[in-house]
């Protein structure tokens, strides 16, 4: 099945790593996957995006049948590590896109120096809800700090939320096996993934 996820955030938040985990899980499940990354902002504070595009794997044609970029209005899911970044990428949403937002605003340099003001969170969320009603807002930083005493698990909690709230074609087993193989501290990551799943179900 085809399923497109756009991950957005700020350099250093783990958006690229989250994309990698979602892609490695597809390889384990034998699902085709492709997706370009915008790393230009990978220095702290810059904009980072990762496209994750699943497609049915065809052993007779190994080249991806779709491009690395999600078209406007094409995302089945958006995972936004920061509210303003979710709004910035609104062009990828359609009326049935599922959106997960980390409710932790980070001030861009232009806001610090007073050139711009950061819109209120109510305003940001109201705008995103014009695109899709399926907007889920969590304080993922707070969850990570509360359970793991650091911000390191923000992206793995997001992974759990995404798994529970979307129709990801990859299996839970593939995600857990990927975390186990990829990360040194996989116990926390797997816990965080489970916390994300639970939080989504309770919300």
């Amino acid at each position, binding site marked *: 099945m085809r399923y497109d996820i756009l991950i957005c955030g700020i350099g250093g938040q783990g958006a690229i790593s989250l994309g990698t985990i979602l892609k490695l899980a597809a390889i384990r499940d034998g699902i085709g996957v*492709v*997706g370009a990354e915008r790393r230009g902002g990978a220095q702290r504070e810059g904009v980072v995006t990762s496209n994750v595009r699943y497609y049915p794997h065809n052993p007779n044609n190994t*080249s991806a049948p779709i491009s690395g970029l999600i078209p406007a*209005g094409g995302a089945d899911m958006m995972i936004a590590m920061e509210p303003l970044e979710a709004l910035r990428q609104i062009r990828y949403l359609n*009326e049935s896109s599922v959106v997960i937002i980390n409710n932790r605003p980070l*001030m*861009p340099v232009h806001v610090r120096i007073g050139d711009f003001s950061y819109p209120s969170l109510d305003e940001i969320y109201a705008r995103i809800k014009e695109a899709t009603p399926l907007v889920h807002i969590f304080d993922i930083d707070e969850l990570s700090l509360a359970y793991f005493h650091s911000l390191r698990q923000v992206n793995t909690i997001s992974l759990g939320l995404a798994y529970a709230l979307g129709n990801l074609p990859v299996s839970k087993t593939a995600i857990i096996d990927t975390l186990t193989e990829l990360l040194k501290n996989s116990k926390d990551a797997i816990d965080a993934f489970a916390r994300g799943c639970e939080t989504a179900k309770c919300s």
Partner: protein
Amino acid sequence: MKELARNAPGKMILAMGNDAIVRGGLEAGIGYFSTYPGTPASEIGEGYAALLDEFPHLHAEFSVNEHVAAHGALGASWAGVRAMTTMKHVGMNVAAEVLHFAAYTGVKAGLVVIIGSDPGATSSTSEQDDRWYSLHTHLPILEPSTIQEAKDFTVRAFEISERYNLPVILNAPSKLCHNIGSLILGALPKRFVGTGGGRFDRNPSRYINLFAGSVANHKKAMEHKEHLRADIPSLSLNQVFKGSGSTGFISSSVNFSYLKESLSLLDIDAPIMKLGITHPLNADEIAAFAGKLTRLFVVEDLEGFLEFQIKALLYEHNVLISIEGKNIFPPYGELDVDTITIALAKALEKPLPPSMERALTLEKKLTAGIPPRQGSFCIGCPHRATVYSIVKATDRSAIFAGDIGCYTLSSLPPFRAFDWVTCMNCGVGIGQGMRQVIGDEPIVAYVGDSTFFHSGIPGLINAVQQNADMVLVILDNKWVAMTGHQPSPTTESSPRGEKFSPVDLKLLLKSVGVRYVRTANPFNIKATISTIKDALCEKGGVRVIIAEAECALQNERRKKYEPSPYERYHQIEPDICQKCNECYVQLGCPAIRKSGEGDAFYYYIEEALCVNCGACRDLCPNTAISLVEIRRGKAAS
């Protein structure tokens, strides 16, 4: 990364476009690799550097610049060892001199030049299209469109290079280099030829390009290219996809995959010719495709390299149909599915797909006026501290001669302390020329360690010889940091403690005639400001300040291997803080945050992010920032 080393043909792995190129080189049995790191192609060099244990025959190096890297690869090829050199698109300007001779001399073993191009300049100072170079270098160009082709075409490039006696260019844009997806592995060769396995056979008529010999080699290069051109239809690099109607499309690279998706969104079934080799072109093949059409669109990035060639050859073949491309697609910036869909919908008078129409309308309405988000220095970056000191010491009353590296972020807010940035070593180079014609205004030039060694030494020597009155700040962070921490000539040791042989920068400066050299620890802000002020007061000649501190990210990694017995953190005393904004706005460190509403706001340091560089503590005019040190219970053991 180790998966790239496995001899497991048919296995599906996850790979970045750059990884696929690494694997392609291995499947082709390369023995020599050289690069000067540059986004988007940097990961190729890192890939080989990580695989040296698995492939001991392989020589892989981070060269001092692209010119040297290309020469090195040519040397290996002449000695019969398959060689690859990689660079970003602007690196081609530096390697161009070498590569203009490479078609004349030809190759012995395959030589493949990987160009990571950057339409949209998302991590570059220009978006030039290097494909145009091939009109005069005569080097063939392959353009993969998918991750799988990035590998497969790399292998093909070596075969073509050897068969036609020409180095081959493989052009990969950033959206392919940084595309990550499935890759099916091929087989690794049974035998590799590399270190110690080469042999140079003298051949003066090929390698000595002089007078009539050079003309003879020029003729041979043209013949090799024509030989390849004639064979193109049999190489199966180009593909025709059948469709209905008399409107057709020619495309290459990632734009082919965008085009296919656009046509599907617009519900258009049309013939498409996908070019895997974009120079030279075979006129018969193109004419056979275009001859059945009345309207042809060429879909490509930038200034229309394919359109230019196709128009000329179809005119010669008397195929006089409507050929469009740069009349509807912008000749600058990066194409994507949306841009192509919008342009084609307009040209073909089709409605936009409803989901795209809706999304674009919402975007226009809902994102107007939102704050942009630009990159900034990392937390604890020594460059942030150095630039802060430059701004303070000069009071902005100097010309800031910018250059390329992480410190290019000085051009952005809050500093805005760059007056120009173009190519490598534009700082000292342009600055020393300007010095000769302007009045008394001081010039402060920037250069990073790696950029300085790349091509800055001639500029500095010229400045010394011409007695240019200027201050040059060498921001020596010990690594090629922006591209992912490749070693630079001043690297002393890796975070794990592996020793390097660093160049003695001070000795080098002295030996080229710089009489005024000072060093500064950037985190000691007050001392650095006064060092810069002293240098500005000194008149005549080039004064060099080495702002020396390791890249914060590498320094953090080092801490893992050398744990401190102290737990350290910085804090802002809210009672002492005068909210003067020096740390939050002027230094702009992202670890310093603001909380609270209205006038009751306060600043604090986010402990989870701060790396204790101490710059804010040193610059605080109210001594409101302090360092707390606590001896760890067990950590010392």
